[in-house]
Structures are given as C-alpha cells and as structure tokens.
C-alpha cells in the first residue's frame, strides 16, 4: 500500500509501487490535469512539483514518492490565480493547451527559485518542455510578465 500526499490531500494506492506517479495521478486518483507526453522524461508534459521542485512524474515510481508533498496543476493555486497562471491568460499563451499544465508547473518552479530570471535562465529552464503547437513566444512572454509581477 502506497500513501501519497497530493495537493494537500492524502491518498492510498494498493497497486504496483513501481508504476510511474504519472499514471497513478491520472488513472487511479483521477487527477488528469497532469499530462502524458513521452513517458521517458523528454517533453515535460507530466511535470509536477515534489517538495517544490519541478519533476517529471513519468520517471518517478510512485513507491519512491514517500512522504514528499506532490503538487499538480490542480493544486498550484486554490483559485487558479498563481501569477504564472494569470500571466498565461494575459498572454493567451495556449493553442491546444495540452502541454501547458507541464509548462506552467515548470515555469512556476523556476520563478519560485529565481523570481527574476534572465532571458537565458528562462530558456534554460524551459527547454525540456515541448510544445508542438508552437506557443513558445507566448510562454516566454508569460514568464517574463509573471516575473515582472502582474
């Protein structure tokens, strides 16, 4: 039995502890905001926070999470108004929007550790998150906007 703390709530999972956290979040807990993209840590669609650090939930076995606090896109902000979320809406960043939960989780972790990132720091932090629609211009704009305080 695996116990998890996700977005401030406790969950138990009685299945295989070697299954990636991603699939437990999505298929067992119903937290489908976290998206599957590649399964091997190359695209960032499944990014969540683990004790505040951005991490690919497709690479982490659920049994390894232990007592650490998992935050998903659903729990990033109680009212959905994290500065990154607000900036995302200000810039109309998404096209299809599928990868954006991961993008937002990555960007919010960046700003938590580096509130005023340089352009180079933004690109370096975000280059693990693929957007196939090609919203990078707006993503960059949104992160700059969020870091400036919206």
């Amino acid at each position: 039995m695996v116990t998890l703390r996700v977005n401030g709530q406790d969950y138990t999972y009685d299945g295989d502890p070697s299954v990636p956290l991603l699939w437990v979040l999505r298929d067992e807990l119903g937290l489908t905001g976290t998206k599957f993209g590649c399964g091997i840590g190359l695209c960032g669609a499944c990014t969540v926070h683990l004790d505040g650090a951005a991490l690919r939930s497709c690479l982490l076995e659920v049994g390894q999470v232990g007592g650490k606090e998992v935050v998903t896109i659903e729990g990033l902000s109680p009212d959905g108004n994290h500065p990154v979320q607000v900036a995302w809406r200000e810039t109309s960043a998404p096209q299809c929007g599928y990868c954006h939960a991961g993008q937002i989780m990555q960007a919010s972790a960046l700003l938590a550790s580096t509130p005023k990132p340089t352009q180079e720091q933004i690109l370096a932090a975000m280059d693990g998150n693929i957007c196939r629609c090609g919203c990078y211009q707006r993503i960059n704009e949104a992160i700059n906007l969020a870091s400036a305080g919206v």
Partner: protein
Amino acid sequence: MTHMFKSGIFNFAPIPPGSVANMSRRFVLKGFVAAGTLVVGTSFLPGKGRADWATGAALMPGGTKNNPHLFIAIDPSGEVTIIANREEMGTGIKTSLPMVVADEMEADWSRVHVQQATGDNEKWGNQDTDGSRSVRHWVQPMRQCGAAMRMMLEQAAATRWGVELSSVKAENHRVVNLATGEIAGYGELAAAASALPMPPVEALQLKNPRDFRYIGTGSIQIVDLYDITVGKAVYGIDAKMPGMKFAVIARPPVVGGKLVSYDATETLKVPGVEQVVVVPGATWPLKFRPLGGVAVIARNTGSAIKGREQLKIVWDDGPNASYDSVAFRSQMEASAGQPGLVVRDDGDAEGALKSAARVISATYYIPHLAHASMEPPTATAHVTNGTCVAYVPAQYPGGCHDDLAAVLGIPASNVTVNLTLLGGAFGRKCNWDFALEAALLSKATGVPIKVVWTREDDLQHDSYHTVSVERIDAGVDTNGRVVAWRHRSVAPSLWSTFDGSQVHEHPIELGMGFVDNPFDIPNLRCENPACAAHVRIGWFRSVSNIPHAFAIQSFVAELAAATGRDPRDMLLELIGPDRVLDPTKFRGVTNFWNYGDPVSTYPIETGRLRRVTEIVAEQIGWGRTLPKGHGLGIAAHRSFLSYIATAVEVAVDDKGNITIPRVDTAVDCGFYINPERIRSQVEGAAVQGTALAKNSEITFKNGRAQQSNFDGYLLARINEVPLNVNVHIVPADWNVPSSGLGEPPLPPFAPALCNAVFAATGKRIRSLPIGNQLAT
C-alpha cells in the same frame, strides 16, 4: 448511463437545444421549420446588397446548417448557450464560430456559454475539422444563424409592444423600443422568440461590419483558457467512464504485418494486468481501420505498459518488410530523373529547355514526418447491449461515428461520439483507428476501455507525412529570364491509404502548390512519376504543400543566385504582373481540386501573392546591411486559398549553429474573424517550420520506423525557435471571401529559412532536415 464525469469539471452530456437536457432551466428553441441545410453557393443576401460567396461546403458530408433553433439556447435569465460544431485542436475555432453567432445576434459575450457538439454531421452539419475550412465554410451560415436569432428576438419584442419591427432594435443582449425607450432583455424574450420560425435566408439582415463588437477585433480569448491553465480542460486522454480499464496495444512493427502467435504468460503475472486481448487488424490498404495486434488491459496505463513489455510475439512482417528509406530515396531520385505522368503542360517546356541559353537544375528531398501531437492518439469507448458510447479527440467525428457502427456491426443510430478537446492533431486525428481499437476492445471485454498510444506507438505507427523528391529544371534566356520550367514531383500518395494501386499523387495533392504554380512562365510542365507507398501516408498540416513549396521557393532563390539576381526580385518577377488565374484552364490539368472550393470564388490572384511578398520584404528590411553570419530569406506560397509570405533572418555561427532573430509573415486570408488567433497560428507555424526544417525526420529500415521518442525524432524547443515573429494581416472586408489559415503559414517557412541560410553562408540546403549539414 455509462458516461459520467466528476461533477463541476466537465459535463460531457451534450446540451443540444431542442433536447431534454436541462429543460427546467433552459428555454429551448425548437424548430418550427425544418432545420434547413443552406446551400451557400446558391444563396444571395439582399440585406445590404452583398452577395455571399460560393463555397464547396454543400459537398461536404452533412453540408452546413444555419438554424438558430439548432445552435442557440437562451435561458430565461438571459444566459445564452451556443453550440460549437467544429473541434478544437488549437486553432481557436471552438471560440471563433460561436463568437460570430454572438456578434450577429447582438449577444453580450460575457453571458455566452459555448457547448461542444457531439459528433454527428447530419445533425450539426459537416464537422471535418481539416483543410483549413472551418471559417471559409462556416462564417456565412454562422452569421446567418446569429442574424436570424437577432431578428426573432426583435420580432418577439415588437409583438410584445405592438409596434412595427422597424421600431425596435436589438442591442447588446436586449431589445430597445426606439419610440418609447422601453427595454426587454433577451431572457424575457426567449420564450416568444423561440416560438418563431427562422426567417427565410432572403430576409436576413446581416450587421454592418462597422458594428461588429467581436468579429475582427481579436479581443475575445478562447473559451477554454481558464480551464487549460488550471488543469481542468478535458482532452481525449482525460475521458472517464465508471469501471473503465486501460489498454496499450503491441502493434505489428511493420505496417501491414500480421500477428502469428503470442505468449502472454509473463504479462499476466505483471501486477495490475487483467487481460490480454487480440485486436483484429485490417488488410492493406488499411484505410482508417486498426493496425491490429495484442492489447494488454490493466487497472492503469502504467501497468498496461509494463505488461506489454513482457509479451512475446511472433509477427509476419508482410509486404512492407523491406522498406528502407535510404534505398527508397535513391529510387525516387532515379524516378525524378525520368519523364513521368504529365499533369500540366503549358507551352512547350521540353522544347524551351532544349533551346534555352542555360538550364539550371536542382533536386530536393523532404523526409517522412510524424505528427507528434503532444496528446498521442487515444480514445475511450463502452460497447454494451448493441450500443457504443465513445469519447474521441476526432478531427472527422462523422466518419468515426459511421465506422464505429460498421466495425461493431450495430446501427449508426446506436453510436454516440462525444467530442473532447484535441491535444494537438495536425492531421493525425483525421484517422480514427484508435477509436475503433477502443471500441473493439470494449466489445471484447464488456467494460469501458481507454486506449492510449505511447509516444513510441505514435512515432512508429503514424499515418506519416509523405516522403518526397522534387526536381526542377529551368531554362533561362540570355537576359536571365526564365522561359521554361519543368517540375517533377515524386511522392507516395496519401490516397494509397484507401487504394493500394494508387501510385500517383491524387488531384488533391497535385493541387497543393504543384500544378497550380502561379508563375508567369510561358512553358511550364509538371510531371508526376509513379511511386508506391510502403507506410501509411496521412494528412500532415498543409500536406503536399510542404514539399512543393520547399522545392519551388528554394529553387527561385537558386535561380536568383545562378543569374546574379536578388531573390526577392526574382520571386516578384516570377509571380509576374497581377493576374487572375483559373488553373482548370491550364493545359493538361484535370480534376483540379482548388481545396474543394469553386475557382469562381477563389481563383489564383497573383496580385495578392505579390502584395504579401512585398509586405514581408519591407517589414524585415530587405536589403539592409546585416551583421556577419546573418542572412535574409523569403518565400511566398498560396495554399488553402490564402496567400502567405514569410521572410526570415537567420544567424549562423562559426560552428554552423542556427539562430533565428526575426521572422515576418504576411497573411492574406480574406475576411477574418479573430486576428489574435491568426497571430498564434503563424507563431506556431514558425515553430513547426523550424522543427521540420532543422530537426525532424522519420526513417525506415526493414520496414520499421527508426525513431521511437523525442530523442530520435527531434521537434523544436524554446531555445532554438524564433521568439520574434511579426505577423502582418492584410485587411479584408466582407467582399473578400474567407480562406484558410490553420495550415497556410507552414509551407513558406522552411524555404524562407533555407534561403536565409544560403544568404548567410553560401550553403544551399536541398535535403531536409538541415541537421548537421552546416556543421564545420
């Protein structure tokens, strides 16, 4: 019922006006006249003396509909619900068309709710969200729909006050009595308005465009924006059904291959795995039927993937087992060196080539591409008691609906296709094979099944973008004028998906920037040597325009270089004087497609191509002094009836690394709805264009795709794409018919980039992707 979602997150049960849903709260507009399919091409709007433009919309399955009783519901409190009948995959169409209705009916957008239609062409009109058709086929019916609703509300108010219709005016969610100043809200009038029939199309008064509140302003954001940012937007992969199980499928590694035998002993020992089920595969050509294979069904997708890793399977690789993309390229290049089927033959290109002062030739290669939408193919279905309920991110929901009925052997009326958001599609989700897989597995197991394709599945079993060799030979006279042009295009046809004997490009493919070449050259010949497909070929955003435009627009710059001309000037010279061209009149062209729309509405207007070319040249500062290692490139292309030009500034460093400091793209797509989403589509095309120009390629060996994930199949990341993309939209009023926008920005990008690379380095890229060709 089997479909249920967490309350408050998403209500998939459609709320079709006229049905039983929420009857107590929602005032339903129910048709007093049959929901007429308007054949737009034959209608005429006398309201302001403006003629509609004719389109091919009526030829699409289901045609168009314009009846407000079908699309609009008004709550007694005044809340308005508008149905979006097309699918949202990132273009913004789910917002844009309801916005047109809202504007015409004078609804306050803040009180409008958009509801996604189910997949049902007969009910909602055609829903094939492809071909960059949504605006050009639907802006007229949606304006008519909104105008009809407005006039019905006005009629209801006039009747209430006992005054002439001319004494009342609908204005921002209410109707005003112009004589007395009395006001009635839309909610108050909904009951009476709903009892009225839709006015005849001939009587509809469209708004004067200067009174638009939303159309053309770019002020309306997509309706799912908030939900996307908080993780509540529901894509296909997010569908939930009670008791649902999760499946992944081991498919034949070579397309067209068959299962011989399998051993699931170890798989069934994997914790969480519940069943192993064979998925029957179709025979070649596959159409949109499943590839077949062995499905592992588990309590969650992660367990299913682990179980699949333990399967032992013997495959018969079938007829495509020797497909090798390197050898195939050689064959295609050999074909391009030989005469082929003549598909256009203006003047005497062969003779003019022989007598030309000089012949310049080049051959280009554009590889297979995978769509790689970030949401892979996925669907959820429950088949029980002779019915099927499915949740599908489908671009062709109507076809998916009918094919589900066919493979399940049940009446089409027993199939419900609920449409989710599409997490990207780019043509992949025109093919509904994944929905059939889910349904067949549900039928076999009796429980709801969600099928997810892993990224490896997606990249190795795609309906790929075709592979292409394009050879152009041009004859120039002693003055450097191009007097002859012979273009040979060699590529497997996407029609091979339906007809295994198809070895020539279909008229649809030939019409994508090949036989419709608008250049002012007296002797112009197009040939299409035969080429058979050995993989599934599908639609990929802008389709055959990618190779055709890459070759033609690269070759223009090559001609400029060879003759000592400026590439922009050469391009403008070839576009020539402003002319209106009818490609059906080009000698040798048969069954010209014109993107399914009439040439009478959408001829080739070379002046529009010239104009966008001039705009981007001016905007990027063509001819300015550039830093060392920088270069400018330009390309222009008509596709999906729109005219797009792109100019790119590139910087290439000493090691051959490319950066793209600036892009300017000019768009002439006729009357447009949402310039803000035009901008996002163009920005995205610059990113996809960067990916396909620089990085992306699917290769095959022994029939197997050699790339399996984003380490082998490279897309474009934020640190390599142009972040400075300037979009210039040519203003157009209602007299300029709407044309496509989702796809057209893509084709000119790669040639513009490679032309810029040539300007910067002197190195001509004739084979995509650029990869390490510039490395020093």
